[in-house]
C-alpha cells in the first residue's frame, strides 16, 4: 500500500494539467489584484470622500475573513442575486479581489515612501492630479514594492488550491479526483505538493534576487 512508482508516473500528466490551470488562475488573478489594488490604494490615499472610507472597510473586511468562505459566498450566494459565472471565473475573481486588499496595502507603503518633495515639485510644475500620479508618484512607488508584490503572487499561487472547494479544477482538485478514481491519495497528494514547490521555490528565489537588485541598483 505504500508508494507505487508506476502509478505515480501514470498520474503526472493529469496533475500537470491541473498545475496549468493553477498557473492560469494565478496569472489572471494577479492581473486583477495588481490593478484593483492600485486603484484602491490611490483612492484611499487621495481620501476620496465616501469611496475612501468604503475601501478602508473593504481592505479590513477582506483581510479579516477567510478566502475559503469568501469563495463559498461568491459561489453559492451570488447566483441567487443573478450574478452568474463559471466556477473558474468565480474563483479567479474571488482570489483577485481577495489579494487586491493585500496589494493595496503594499502600494500604500510604496506611495508613502515617495518623499513629500516629489509631490511639491509636481505642484510647482502645475501637473494635474492624474499627471502627478501617472508620471511622478506611481513610477517611484511601484518600483520599490515590486518584490513585495511578487511575494503575494507566489502566495496566491499556493492559495489557489482553496478554489478546489468550489470545484475549480486546479492542481489539488486533480489530485483528489485521481484519488477518487483510484482510491489512493498518497501519490497524487505528494506529487501535487512537489509541483507546488517546483514552481514556488524558484519564483521565491527570483524575487529575492530582484529585491537585491532593486536595493543596490547598477
Amino acid at each position, binding site marked *: *500500500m*505504500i508508494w507505487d512508482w508506476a502509478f505515480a508516473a501514470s498520474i503526472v500528466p493529469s496533475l500537470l494539467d491541473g498545475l496549468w490551470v493553477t498557473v492560469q488562475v494565478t496569472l489572471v488573478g494577479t492581473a486583477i489584484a495588481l490593478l484593483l489594488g492600485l486603484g484602491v490604494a490611490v483612492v484611499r490615499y487621495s481620501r476620496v470622500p465616501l469611496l475612501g472610507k468604503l475601501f478602508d472597510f473593504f481592505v*479590513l*473586511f477582506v*483581510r*479579516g*475573513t*477567510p*478566502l*475559503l*468562505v*469568501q469563495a*463559498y*459566498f461568491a459561489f*453559492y*450566494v451570488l447566483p*441567487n442575486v443573478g450574478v452568474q459565472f463559471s466556477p473558474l471565473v468565480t474563483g479567479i475573481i474571488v482570489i483577485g479581489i481577495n489579494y487586491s486588499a493585500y496589494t493595496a496595502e503594499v502600494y500604500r507603503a510604496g506611495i508613502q515612501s515617495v518623499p513629500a518633495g516629489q509631490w511639491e515639485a509636481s505642484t510647482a510644475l502645475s501637473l494635474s492630479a492624474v499627471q502627478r500620479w501617472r508620471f511622478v508618484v506611481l513610477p517611484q512607488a511601484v518600483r520599490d514594492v515590486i518584490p513585495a508584490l511578487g511575494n503575494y503572487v507566489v502566495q496566491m499561487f*499556493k*492559495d*489557489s*488550491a*482553496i478554489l*478546489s*472547494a468550489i470545484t475549480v479544477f486546479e492542481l*489539488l482538485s486533480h*489530485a*483528489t479526483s485521481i*484519488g477518487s478514481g483510484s482510491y489512493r*491519495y*498518497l501519490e497524487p*497528494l*505528494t506529487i*501535487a*505538493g512537489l509541483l*507546488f*514547490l517546483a514552481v*514556488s*521555490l524558484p519564483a*521565491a528565489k527570483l524575487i529575492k534576487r530582484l529585491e537585491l537588485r532593486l536595493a543596490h541598483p547598477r
Partner: protein
Amino acid sequence: MSQILPFLPLLLNGLLITLALTAVGVVITVLVAFAAGLCRMSRRRWLSWPAGVFIEIFRGTSMLVQLFWLFFALPFFGVQLVPFAAAVLALGLNEGAYGAEIVRGAITALPRGQREGAIALSLTPYQRMRYVILPQAIPAMIPPFGNVFVDLLKNTSLVSLVTVADLTFRAQMVRATTGATTAVFGTILVLYFVAAYALSVGMGRLERRMDPGRPELRPTLLQRLFRPGGVVGS
C-alpha cells in the same frame, strides 16, 4: 435567517472549534517558529539545514495540500493523528514556517553590537539569547506575529475540507440541510471578521504592553548608533 435559527447552537459549536483550533494553533506556531527560526540561524549545519528545508517546504506548498497530506497520506507511514490534531499540526507547521522567518528577521535586525557586548561580558550563548537578544527581539516580533495569527484564524476554515467540524464545516452542513445559503455564509463571514478583528486588537494591546514607553526609545538607540553622540533628553 429564521430558517437557520434552530441551527445556531450548531454554528456556535463550530465557532468554538474554530477558536480552539486557533488557540492551539497559535501555541504550536510560536513553538515551531522559535525552534525553526533559531535552528535556521545556528552555525551548525545539521541544525540549520533541516530547518531551512522545513521552512522552504512549508512556505512553498499550499496549506491545503499539507492538510490533505497529513490527513490522508501520513497514516500510511504509521502516524495516525486524530482529525483535530492533524488540523492544528498542519496549521501550526505552516504558519510556524512563516513565523520562523519573523523570528530570524527580528534577531538579525538587532545591532551587531548587542551580541558583541554580550560576548565581551563572557555571557554564554544561552545567556546572550535569554537576557540580551530575545528581550529586545520579541517586542519587535509582535506586530508581524499578529498578522500570522490572523492568517492562522482564517486558515482554520480549511480544516472543514478534512472533516473537522469547525465553523465553516458546520455552515456547509446547515446550508445543505436548510438551503439558507445567504444567511449561513453571511453569518459566518461576520463571525470570522469579528474574531479576526478582536485578535488584531488584542495583539495591538499586547504590543503596547510589552513595550511600555518604549516607542521612542528604540529608534533613538538606532539613531544613536548611526548619528552618535546625540543627547536624548527625557
